[in-house]
């Protein structure tokens, strides 16, 4: 409660600033329209008009919210017929709309699920690969010296340039659909995991390693009983970055493919000047990212609490 007031205040200020920005961004079009019709446009009238344009330069917050509704369980997403049948909206009708929305290619839920699938698969590949690579780097000097610079270099290449090449190459060997997008997601998400896990696996100090030596502990015990538990806080910090990066990678991977996903909604919105659609897709992506990071955070709290390391 004590925290919600400052948070809500900040949100209110941001929304206020957004509304203010809408006026100058959309004013030109209104003035042009008025000039074309040989009409004087009063300032108050202009402001009102900028808030509800069909294709605004910057849509107003309420337009984005309505867009989000329309493109998830609203009439735009579920189609006219179902829309008619379920109006006025009941709980049962809402359920029907959600079910319809999952399979309607005009719905952000449908596209969001496509993106989510590739994101999760990519995140799993990236995390698994990242952990294995980190273990190899920590236990093998040659890997440490040879792989780490490449891992860093890999992240300096703009993913937007690399994504089409990955898709084309994989397509030419018959891999299409979910996997190429997941690989782009993995490409972005493995890096924070490698960096975090290398740091985490190296976190035990000399004394803790000496202690293991006094027990004549084998490599397996040192790894499982010391290095791995010690790296857990590092791992979770990396996973939060990694899963958000995986989502970005997936969306970028969807741009050249054009077979569904939030990336497609973003791109097609920009093709047809549907700014509200772009913003709605952006918000859908942001909500998805926040939920994924939130889920990782919840798992982190549970695991660290069980390990007596709750922050």
């Amino acid at each position, binding site marked *: 409660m004590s925290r919600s007031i400052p948070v809500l205040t900040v949100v209110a200020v941001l929304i206020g600033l957004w509304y203010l920005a809408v006026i100058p961004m959309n004013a030109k079009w209104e003035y042009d329209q008025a000039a074309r019709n040989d009409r004087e446009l009063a300032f108050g009238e202009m402001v009102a008009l900028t808030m509800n344009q069909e294709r605004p330069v910057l849509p107003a917050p309420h337009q984005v919210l309505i867009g989000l509704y329309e493109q998830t369980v609203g009439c735009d997403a579920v189609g006219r017929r179902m829309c008619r049948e379920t109006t006025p909206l009941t709980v049962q009708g809402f359920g029907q709309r959600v079910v319809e929305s999952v399979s309607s290619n005009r719905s952000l839920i449908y596209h969001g699920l496509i993106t989510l699938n590739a994101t999760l698969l990519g995140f799993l590949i990236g995390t698994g690969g990242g952990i294995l690579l980190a273990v190899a780097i920590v236990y093998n000097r040659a890997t440490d010296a040879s792989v780490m610079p490449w891992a860093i270099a890999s992240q300096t290449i703009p993913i937007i340039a690399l994504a089409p090449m990955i898709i084309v190459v994989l397509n030419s060997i018959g891999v299409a659909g979910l996997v190429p997008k997941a690989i782009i997601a993995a490409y972005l998400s493995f890096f924070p995991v490698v960096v975090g896990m290398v740091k985490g696996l190296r976190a035990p100090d000399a*004394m*803790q390693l000496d202690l293991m030596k006094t027990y004549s502990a084998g490599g397996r015990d040192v790894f499982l009983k010391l290095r791995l538990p*010690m790296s*857990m806080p590092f791992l979770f910090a990396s996973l939060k970055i990694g899963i958000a990066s995986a989502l970005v990678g997936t969306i970028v991977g969807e741009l050249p493919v054009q077979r569904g996903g939030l990336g497609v909604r973003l791109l097609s919105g920009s093709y047809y000047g549907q700014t509200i659609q772009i913003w709605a897709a952006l918000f859908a992506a942001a909500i998805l990212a926040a939920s994924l990071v939130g889920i990782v955070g919840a798992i982190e709290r549970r695991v660290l609490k069980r390990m*007596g390391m709750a922050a």
Partner: protein
Amino acid sequence: MLDVTKDGQGAAGAPVIEAKGLNLTFHTNDGPVHALKDVDLTINKGEFVSFIGPSGCGKTTFLRTIADLEQPTGGSLTVNGMTPEAARKARAYGYVFQAAGLYPWRTIEGNVKLPLQIMGYSKAEQAERAARVLELVELAGFEKKFPWQLSGGMQQRASIARALAFDAEILLMDEPFGALDEIVRDRLNEELLKLWARTQKTIGFVTHSIPEAVYLSTKIVVMSPRPGRITDVIESTLPAERPLDIRDSAEFISIAHRVREGLRAGYEDA
């Protein structure tokens, strides 16, 4: 420099640790550092031996060499008649570090069980031994607590319990109470003596504190730096039974005086 065949306690057993002409030189960027030079020492079974001296005198290095955590560059060293490495692999000693070094993700009981799990004890035996050593260090009832829930003194007691859990005959302690305040330290010293009397272990104990060394030991090894070497070995004449106020006795003060003289002599040589 010195050959001890009997100690004041009359409990002397066979030699457990024997160093002859032991040398250890670290090669650093600033040239070689003689951490240990021509160290001769015999520690017999059941003795409580303190190593005292200023920083850089090699007392910790000597303890670590016994534990096979450092490799000597010359001379000979045997532990239980074996090389230090063989002794380590035979799990001949428990080591208590300066910091308790408990794993924060394990409960106190979990920490004590750590060596037992590594050494492959059965679940039942792990539980039985953990309960026994925690009783010994008076931490019964704290099994399920995490380290951060305990005071510094209790954490260090838990780390001693961890070193005792697998019944090594030798206990090596590197300034275990150095970071604790005087009052807690007095109590732990008293408890350590009781524990030693009950378990009959051979203890090597590194300290900065003269009263601590005199109070605890049957034998005090005075060391001095540059190069790290032994300057005096004092057999304590104090009785086995040592209440805290023995520190006000004339005998205690005279032994402490001799230790202080030894430390000063080491400085003047250097």
